[in-house]
């Protein structure tokens, strides 16, 4: 039996772990502070939950982590990347990385070349691929860069030139040399896709470090299980693939939390309020998945075309520090004692009044020693502060909603006790005893996926044929990623019509998702 799954989530404050069984029941969980070396926290969380279950039965371990985004924000452990754009004579007016923060560009930029090639929107070549220039670029990169990013014009629709370029490069630099292709990490939008490919190359060491670290943590526990990382959209990447494409995992935290909330509550359409120690993220679940933001997302100051959950974040959490009463401004936050709440909050014998103290004094939570807080805070202050909190929460719930339909609200996260039981415009407030580790549960229950993002011309074949072709390609990709063919379904079909185009052309985005195929054989090591 290899039916148990371990879900791990490394956040800015906490590292959480859960074990779920085949039926999706949560068997055990563990929450601890994120450690300076993230892997230490993962190891101890893993050891803690494995102590409670039959480790022989664990078949899969899923990890969501802030590792890569922290590496980019802190500019740490980044690889130098050779950048090849296949586009000339198009696009010469904008150089690669030209809109990047200068310090990040200086760390990452290796050899840069824009060569002839790429495709038109309808699939013909802009120019044939300049194979000699590709080879010259590869030779120039030898011993100078750690990774190479290759991006061709319109490659999501036609990746031929990117694929051929990689073959030429690996022939010269070796099969193991890491080459990221634009179409593997991004959709339409050349600059954003190129940025994603370069960021992915820059994260090469970070990706390896996570996967190797997790593998060694599993080995230390003598755990023989398949490893997956969760992606931005809440679906899974197998370890080897995650080491190759770490950029795909970069925004998985909020997604995992929302998917976990959907799973625990059994709701498909709801507001999710994730109240942590320092901040609250509010998002909207539609058909069990987070509604995505309409805007391009910047990572470490670099614009990419990833779609992240559409979140509103505010500085309100269990550790938010109360502010002096002056009649204006917020009653608490954005300063927070964060994960040191167990030392600093009044109820824990500290000297800093926090929202957790207020929550305990108003009867919303029951932990710590209420008498310690009562010595410092009077009832008037508490009731003023809690009604300020209620106003904020009501405003957040109202802002995230698309219409004036009363929706349920799922309160998760360590600070969920701050959410009142009644919120105007909310049909009910749903809590779950495992709500504090919703993010790790979201990782544990994640499914495999595949997607397609290309421009199609409906006049070559009918619209239905085009959509069927795109759907089939997405399903194939999901199955390739480990989804059970019998249960793989299409979750998203977006058609974005193209203005000014002759005939009927559209950008077609399709995503297929399916549960991981149960592990039947042990992967040979």
């Amino acid at each position, binding site marked *: 039996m290899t039916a148990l799954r371990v879900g791990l989530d490394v956040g800015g404050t906490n590292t959480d772990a859960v074990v779920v069984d085949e039926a999706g029941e949560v068997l055990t969980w563990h929450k601890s502070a994120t450690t300076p070396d993230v892997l230490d926290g993962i190891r101890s969380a893993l050891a803690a939950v494995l102590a409670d279950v039959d480790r022989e039965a664990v078949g899969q371990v899923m990890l969501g982590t802030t590792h890569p985004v922290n590496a980019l924000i802190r500019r740490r452990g980044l690889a130098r990347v050779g950048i090849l754009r296949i*586009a*000339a*004579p*198009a*696009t*010469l*007016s*904008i*150089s690669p990385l*030209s*809109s990047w923060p200068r310090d990040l560009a200086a760390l990452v930029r290796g050899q840069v070349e824009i060569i002839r090639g*790429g495709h*038109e*929107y309808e699939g013909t070549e*802009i120019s044939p691929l300049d194979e000699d220039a590709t080879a010259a670029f590869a030779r120039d990169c030898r011993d100078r860069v750690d990774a190479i990013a290759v991006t061709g*014009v*319109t490659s999501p629709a036609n990746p031929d030139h990117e694929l051929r370029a990689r073959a030429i490069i690996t022939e010269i630099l070796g099969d193991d040399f890491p080459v990221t292709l634009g179409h593997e990490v991004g959709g*339409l*939008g*050349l*600059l*954003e896709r190129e940025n994603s490919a370069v960021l992915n190359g820059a994260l090469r060491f970070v990706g390896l470090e996570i996967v190797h670290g997790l593998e060694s943590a599993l080995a230390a526990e003598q755990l023989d299980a398949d490893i997956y990382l969760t992606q931005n959209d809440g679906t899974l990447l197998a370890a080897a693939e995650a080491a190759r494409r770490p950029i795909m995992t970069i925004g998985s935290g909020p997604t995992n939390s929302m998917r976990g909330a959907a799973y625990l509550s059994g709701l498909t359409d709801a507001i999710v309020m994730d109240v942590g120690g320092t901040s609250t993220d509010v998002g909207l679940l539609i058909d069990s998945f987070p*509604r995505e*933001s*309409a*805007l*391009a997302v910047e990572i470490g100051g670099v*614009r990419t075309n990833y779609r992240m959950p*559409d979140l509103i974040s505010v500085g309100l959490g269990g550790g938010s520090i109360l502010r002096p009463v002056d009649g204006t401004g917020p009653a608490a936050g954005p300063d927070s004692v964060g994960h040191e709440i167990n030392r600093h909050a009044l109820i824990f014998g500290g000297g800093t009044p926090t929202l957790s103290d207020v929550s305990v004094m108003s009867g919303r939570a029951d932990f710590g020693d209420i008498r310690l807080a009562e010595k410092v805070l009077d009832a008037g202050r508490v009731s003023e502060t809690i009604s300020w909190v209620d106003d904020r929460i009501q405003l957040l719930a109202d*802002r*995230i*909603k*698309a*219409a*004036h339909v009363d929706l349920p609200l799922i309160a998760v996260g360590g600070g969920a006790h701050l959410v009142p039981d009644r919120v105007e415009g909310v049909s009910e407030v749903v809590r779950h005893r495992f709500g504090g580790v919703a993010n790790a549960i979201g990782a544990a229950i994640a499914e495999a996926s595949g997607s397609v993002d290309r*421009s199609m011309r409906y006049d070559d074949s009918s619209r239905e044929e085009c959509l069927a072709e795109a759907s089939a390609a997405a399903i194939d990709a999901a199955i390739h990623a480990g989804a059970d063919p019998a249960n793989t379904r299409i979750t998203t079909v977006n058609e*974005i*019509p*193209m*203005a*000014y*185009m*002759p005939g009927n052309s*559209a*950008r077609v985005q399709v995503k297929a998702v399916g549960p991981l195929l149960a592990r039947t054989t042990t992967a040979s090591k």
Partner: protein
Amino acid sequence: MTGRAIGLDDIEDLALGAVVLGTGGGGDPYVAKIMLAEAIEKYGPVPLVDAADLDPDGLLLPVAMVGAPTVIVEKFPNGNEAHTVLRALEEHRGDKGVAVMPIEVGGMNTLFPIAVAAELGLPCVDADSMRRAFPQIEMTLLTLDGISSSPMTLADVKGNYVYFDAQDNATGEKLVRACVAQMGMIAVMSAYPMTAAQCARHAVNGSVTFALEIGRRVNAIQQGKPGAYDEFLTFCEAQILFTGKVLDIERHTTAGWARGTVTLEHLDDRSRVMRVDIQNENLIAFEDGVPLATVPDLITLMDIETGVPMTTESLGFGQRLHVIGMPAHPRWITPDGLALAGPRAFGYDLDYVPLGGAR
């Protein structure tokens, strides 16, 4: 005025002004913004000049990037197209170009001509042909004054170019669309070639500065400066028509137009609903079915808290927005102006309504 120039520090403000004047359309200025930054870094700030200060007989090069926005983000220009266009025009007309001119000051084509000016080593004229953005090339104040959009020139990234004369500006528009389709859906266009004297007389002079000044005021809103919203509205002679929350966004394409509607519910009074109709640009704002603002007046949506002006693509559910109405250049509010770019020109069975509605 002398000594003005567009430098790196102006780009952000100019782009903000371009989105306001783009009224939701005109193309996301993102690519043009990076292109301009790179051109200024390479060639230095671009002098901004008044047409009246140029040699009256000097040839101006009004330019725009034309094509499908979805293709422009994949296959943007290489910088040589403008050289091709200028060379073609100079060869056929026999005179030398003295300055570049934006055709519109809304969306990406506010910034793109300035990048072109940098690449060509020419100044940019502080003028345009409409003081907003429109989706069709004949929709200009120049057309109203009988100035031909021809000869028109289109150049693609490969160095191909087309130079043609159309009998009227509406036909010119059709020919441009046909050519652009064969040029990989993106081209650099020059139209309405004219002298500096013609520009001074018939174009909207000062409109680049107008866009920049609007952008500065929007920036002040975004910085949270006290009174900034009022200062912005006063400068634009604009009014807030409605303040609401986005309830619904609907988009589709018919006949090459990105059409759609956005529905907002009033923040203070849920019984009030506003619908903004979109055909590339925001065209008409209806409150409970009654038009409060119509094209050619400008309708811009702006986030009430952050001051971010919205392009149609960036609209999202739940956003809290001001619907802002801004008067069009007065030359548009004339019988011939409204015939060319009023509601009926966009297929509405509706007459132009002065800003704020016929109250």
